[in-house]
């Protein structure tokens, strides 16, 4: 490539000893440095970040980690308490709870990630347009967002999930729609304050189009708030997903999710066995805790002013 040619020539020039210059740090070091800073500044968040990473790894490696098939019944071991063969016990039709909890992380995390990404992105783009164009479009959009926020999150998600019918895609859409107003509000205010900044004025003066101003000049500034928003809403998304599963409008059984496992436990009879209740709920709690604390840490690192506001 032409851009690297002069550089390569420079390196071969006689008399220039490379040892005089400090060696550039290897690539992996440059990537890891912010992680190191993060760990030093908030060890608590870094620890829970590792936990979150472990949970994501668990979801990815579910087929190899799970000791049994999560869908396969073993009629010789039905409703068995935790033992050496089944660490988390088995359910009413002899499925291994540990395997189901591990596989459940897959659906729960997939839905939470996709829903937050979709909802926050749509909201952010909408907010960006509102803040940038202002005027009548902005006023109408603010009303629409207000209507959407007039519903408690879970009620709105339930109604949408029910209307669209059960399935992974519909649950993702249902949760994503409840996340749109948050993205819209936050990014709109960022865009509003950026619109009047001198660098945007300068670009406009140079003849940049609206599209260029929005995507080249304002959008990059929205990335930090976007990341903060997305991580803080992951926990909420996981809880909504679990609640939908618990209420029977999430992913339908037999596919295990933490929510529908708890629902199954309650449907089984008057008194659900304790291990069927304890473990899926514990999985939800630890996951939400990990993502919330990681989100707090990322927020403090990227923008300490936002503490408590997102």
């Amino acid at each position: 490539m032409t851009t690297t040619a002069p550089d390569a020539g420079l390196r071969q020039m006689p008399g220039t000893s490379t040892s005089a210059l400090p060696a550039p740090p290897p690539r992996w070091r440059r990537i890891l440095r912010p992680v190191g800073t993060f760990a030093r500044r908030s060890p608590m968040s870094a620890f829970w970040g590792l936990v979150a990473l472990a949970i994501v790894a668990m979801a990815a490696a579910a087929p190899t980690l799970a000791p049994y098939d999560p869908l396969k019944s073993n009629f010789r071991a039905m409703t068995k308490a935790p033992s050496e063969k089944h660490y988390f016990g088995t359910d009413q039709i002899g499925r291994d709870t540990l395997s189901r909890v591990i596989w459940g992380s897959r659906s729960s995390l997939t839905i939470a990630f996709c829903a937050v990404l979709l909802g926050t992105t749509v909201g952010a783009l909408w907010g960006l347009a509102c803040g940038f164009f202002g005027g009548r479009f902005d006023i109408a959009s603010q009303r629409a967002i207000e209507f959407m926020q007039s519903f408690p999150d879970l009620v709105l998600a339930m109604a949408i999930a029910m209307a669209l019918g059960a399935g992974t895609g519909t649950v993702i859409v249902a949760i994503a729609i409840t996340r749109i107003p948050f993205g819209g509000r936050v990014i709109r205010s960022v865009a509003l304050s950026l619109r009047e900044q001198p660098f945007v004025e300068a670009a406009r003066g140079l003849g940049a189009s609206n599209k260029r101003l929005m995507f080249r000049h304002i959008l990059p500034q929205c990335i930090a708030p976007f990341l903060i928003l997305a991580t803080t809403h992951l926990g909420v998304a996981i809880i909504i997903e679990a609640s939908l599963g618990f209420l029977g409008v999430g992913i339908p059984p037999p596919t295990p999710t933490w929510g529908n496992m708890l629902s199954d436990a309650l449907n089984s009879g008057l008194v659900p066995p304790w291990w069927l209740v304890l473990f899926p709920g514990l999985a939800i709690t630890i996951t939400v805790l990990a993502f919330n604390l990681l989100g707090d840490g990322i927020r403090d690192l990227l923008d300490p002013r936002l503490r408590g506001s997102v």
Partner: protein
Amino acid sequence: MFSYILRRLVFGVLTVIGVSIVVFVIMRVLPGDPLVAIFGAEGYTKLTEAERASYMSQLGLSDPLWQQYLAWVQDIARGELGHSFFRSESVADMILRRGPLTAQIAFLSVLLSWLVGIPVAIVSALKPNSWADNLVRFMSILFIAVPGFWLGMLIVLTLLFTFGYRAPLTGANLLADPWTTVQMIIGPAIVLGLGQAAYIARMARSSLLEVIREDYVRTARAKGLSGRLVIAFHALPNALLPVITLSGVLLGFVLAGSIPVERAFGTPGLGYTMFTAVSERDVFVMQNLVFLYAVVFVLLNIFIDIIIAWLDPRIRLR
């Protein structure tokens, strides 16, 4: 003040109209056939075209959408909310019979959240970074992460295994049988109250920490008032304003949260009705209940806004 209330109410009416349109769009316009919901996918395929058409017109679903919407609005205005597909009880009766239980749960949980959250926040804010403060912060982070319905299931199981106790499942009338009612609502109220208390403690702590640093608090200390008096009469009233606003937002959280929590406890409140309606795909009941929840949420928020304006002249006079 009067003009402020009027303005909020006009906005409230507009919001309710908007909300009704959103509910209608979700329940009737989004893809998904109500007949599939009623008869199930298998039953639906067994119906002939003529049968489908006749059911649709019986239910009023073959009219143009705007007519359906107006018919629904008229029904709401007359207080006739239609019938469930699966039960003989009308939706209006259902709400009147089961609503009070959920309202009591919500009220008690808000009370509990303040009784737990505020003292804890004061202890925490007076000695930042002490062991008590760290404990409070840890607990509030924990209770934000714990799903309420799971906590509810654990409480039911623990009581059952250790004391053989199960809260009564029927017969709720606060006046006729207060003791049974209290047993029924106390569980869900504690679970929902703790969930809110976590948010309230966090907000009250940070708000108190800010207020304590203000000049007028230092002045009060300097003129010789005891620390307790300064906190109670000078710092707390101002620090509580954002907490009241948050409490209003959290009420929406209680309304929604009571749905899975009532299922976990088996409490026959409105939340449980909502659960039954959603699991039976009972479109009309769902439509009316979702609308009701949204209206209650909007009204509560207006109520909170008015309280805040009454307490804080800075907002009222803007």
